[in-house]
């Protein structure tokens, strides 16, 4: 263990915004070649900040308060720009949390991978894509990132990172949004790469199973930070600071409140619309939301890809339904059709037994209000130019669910419901961590008081504690307000725990549906194991 050479050495690194919150409490980290190190810790504990610091990139306005970062013998924080660029280009590769927006939307997959490749020949690119478990046979190398599923984008980003044959690989949430089978394959791939290429890999990760599966060393920033800062002055997290990626203390506090609240008497708070605005409840035999024979095809340059093929779907009022399936099987497309964002080529939708228009714009305001989508990528779905408060106030005003004077109170209430402090209303999306953004995204969906909540991988960016708190929140709201949930997730345990019915999608077709307990036995085995 100690004989393998050190690739990265981080010593007592502390990053903070002058006069503001600490982004990373004093941390030390050593990466060795041929070993995989996992960074764990609650969202907002500085995992991403630490990874970015290793490639010499600090958040806007942030300063290194103390410590050094040495990568392959270079002090990256003091390296001249051109040598730092050379290091990033050839020796250290970083894959961010949100590869969907980090891949150039106008470049095709094969060019994206060839651009950084040591060997940009088409065959080498295809081999690399295949190595990253991407299907190269069906024209994927000729598609652009927008035509890939979330999981495929993540693997393309990984392939792009590996193409330069780096010595150090930094991955931020490499398996978020991937199903268990793929996650294990990626874990095996990383294991294999670490051994054969003598690569030092570090991954920031919420997923304990991935950590168990492939990590040699685990660094817990939550505990490491508290141990390391025990002697130092406590970090000021007053929340009044204008800029900050996250605030560890406040997150922990808010988590406690949200957990406490889920145990407390429920009737005290109501996030939903006034009772008068609640819809007529049909009897249980009429499905609240139903779809018949949905078909969606995407055509690019004469090639047709069937994303959905004669899919039928229905949910009863107050029920909770899961949708599972491998990456690229059409789960997100189905949710987008239900939300009215994707026009199906065939099929019909009903809400309360009455026909529902396929396009969201043609739906009535009440229908729009009743169906809300929480999208997969919270950074892409939040307007970067609006504060969290403005983002949450908009649906309140649009659907007239709150009087103008009450809007700030309702915003604070919504933030409180998703476990964020009220002063987050003044922040912008880029000042939040991935987990916090997801909470804001959920709060926005809750704002108009929906009846059906379509959740697309809402917990993939969250650590297990936060994910459990968010799912508790959704489950509680469901019982309180007879909210109907449709949950798309790769985390089968989570789907099994919070849904009664589950549909299995494979290559755009429903290949199975039934009670969650039967289809997802104990939530351990994937139903679509190959």
């Amino acid at each position, binding site marked *: 263990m100690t004989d393998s050479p050190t690739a990265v050495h981080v010593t007592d690194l502390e990053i903070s915004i002058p006069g503001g919150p600490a982004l990373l409490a004093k941390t030390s980290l050593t990466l060795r070649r041929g070993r995989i190190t996992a960074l764990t810790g609650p969202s907002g504990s500085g995992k991403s900040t630490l990874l*970015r610091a290793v*490639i010499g*990139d600090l958040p806007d306005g942030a300063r290194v308060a103390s410590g050094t970062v040495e990568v392959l013998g270079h002090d990256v924080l003091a390296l001249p720009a051109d040598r730092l*660029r*050379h*290091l*990033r*280009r*050839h020796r250290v*590769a*970083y894959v*961010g949390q*949100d590869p969907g*927006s*980090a*891949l*150039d*939307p*106008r*470049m095709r997959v094969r060019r994206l991978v060839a*651009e*950084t490749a040591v060997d940009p020949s088409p065959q080498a690119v295809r081999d690399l894509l295949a190595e990253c478990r991407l299907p190269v046979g069906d024209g994927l190398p000729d598609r*652009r990132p*927008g*035509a890939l599923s979330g999981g495929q984008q993540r693997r393309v980003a990984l392939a*792009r*990172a590996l193409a*330069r044959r780096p010595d150090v690989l930094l991955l931020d949430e490499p398996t978020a949004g991937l199903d268990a089978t793929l996650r294990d394959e990626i874990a095996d791939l990383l294991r294999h790469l670490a051994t054969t290429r003598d690569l030092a890999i570090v991954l920031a990760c919420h997923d304990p199973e991935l950590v168990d599966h492939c990590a040699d060393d685990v660094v817990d920033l939550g505990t490491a930070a508290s141990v390391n800062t025990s002697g130092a002055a406590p970090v000021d997290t007053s929340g009044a600071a204008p800029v900050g990626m996250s605030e560890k203390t406040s997150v922990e506090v808010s988590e406690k409140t949200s957990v406490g609240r889920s145990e407390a008497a429920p009737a005290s708070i109501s996030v939903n619309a006034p009772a008068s605005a609640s819809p007529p409840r049909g009897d249980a035999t009429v499905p609240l939301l139903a779809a018949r024979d949905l078909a969606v095809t*995407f055509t*690019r340059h004469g090639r047709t890809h069937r994303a959905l093929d004669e899919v039928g779907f229905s949910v009863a009022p107050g029920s909770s339904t899961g949708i599972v399936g491998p990456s690229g099987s059409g789960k997100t497309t189905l949710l987008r059709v239900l939300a009215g964002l994707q026009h199906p080529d065939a099929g019909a939708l009903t809400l309360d037994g009455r026909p529902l228009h396929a396009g969201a714009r043609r739906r009535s305001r009440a229908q729009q209000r009743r169906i809300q989508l929480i999208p997969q990528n919270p*950074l892409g779905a939040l307007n970067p130019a609006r504060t969290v408060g403005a983002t949450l106030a908009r649906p309140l005003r649009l659907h007239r669910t709150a009087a103008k004077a009450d809007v700030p109170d309702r915003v604070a209430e919504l933030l409180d419901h998703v476990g964020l402090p009220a002063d987050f209303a003044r922040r912008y999306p880029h000042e939040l961590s991935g987990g916090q953004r997801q909470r804001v995204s959920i709060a926005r969906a809750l704002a108009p008081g929906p009846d059906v909540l379509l959740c697309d991988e809402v917990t993939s960016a969250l650590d297990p504690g936060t994910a459990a708190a968010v799912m508790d929140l959704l489950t509680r709201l469901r019982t309180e307000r007879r909210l109907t949930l449709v949950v798309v997730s790769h985390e089968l345990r989570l789907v099994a725990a919070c849904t009664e019915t589950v549909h299995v999608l494979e290559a755009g077709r429903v290949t199975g549906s039934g009670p969650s307990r039967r289809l997802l036995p104990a939530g351990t085995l994937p139903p679509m194991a190959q």
Partner: protein
Amino acid sequence: MSEAAIEGAEAAAAPAAASALRRSLRAVGRTGVVLAKRALMLAVLLAVVFAAIELLPGDAASATSERGESAADTAARRRLLGLDRPVWERFPDWMTALPTGDLGTSARGEHVTDLLAAPFPNTLLLGATAFAVTLAAALALGCWAALRPGGTADRIVGFASGIALALPEFVVSIGLLLVLSLWTGWLPAVTLTAPDGSPASWTMLVMPVLALTVPQIGWNARIVRGALADQAAAPHVAAARLDGLSPRRVLLRHALPGAWPAIATGAATSTGMLLGGAVVVETLFNYPGLGTVLSGAVADRDTPVIAGVVACTGAVISLVLLCADLVRARTLGARP
């Protein structure tokens, strides 16, 4: 090779050919609709021109009257030119003749088509050269500034383009005349024309082109710089930087493609300003183009000539705007 095999191949090819035909027919139909819309826009523009000239005091008969001409003669000529009829009768007459290439007759009795035959290509040459120079210089300056945001080049380009943008063409023209012609004597102050009516040599184009482009370069360089700054903040551009790609590659391959729609729209709006500026510049340099014809025609209240000039320039501007829309659609369409 049996016949059956050939038939089989034909049968397989038939539906593919049919769908290709249907696709191309649909594309032709879409193009037709787009072009029809632009033509309608042009017709509305020409109606506005007719109405505007009607509102000017005086008419072509009085504006072009000889000295000592009697009121009766003027009235006779007015009847001859058809100016005694109301504008809503003259406009449809002129419009219906337009598709046949007949632009009507000027107040001095010449065919407008002949009147514009020589100046229009000259103005097109001037405008196209100015447009190309503008685009190239604006792209170069904008990219140069964007390579080092906040650096010396960025500040110089920002400052200089602001000043250039604020300069009217005639100020630039006079400055150029002073420096390049009166003081140094490098270039002739007025345009000399060859027997066929075109400028005698390419040196005649230098000053008019410069006078037209300086303000437009200022305007477009700012647009390029701004569009690149927006793109630089996009996550995929930030990611490309963190991948250690060279600044030039990040700029040209990752930021610039996304900036094309804004740049194309900015450049297309420049066409209108270039052609409008040509009126001033051509008059100043005595360049034999549409601008000279137009300024004379406005003084004469010569509606068919003015409408003919507007029809030509309007068609050019619509075409360039259409190209900009196509660039935009192509760039945005590449997203999914």
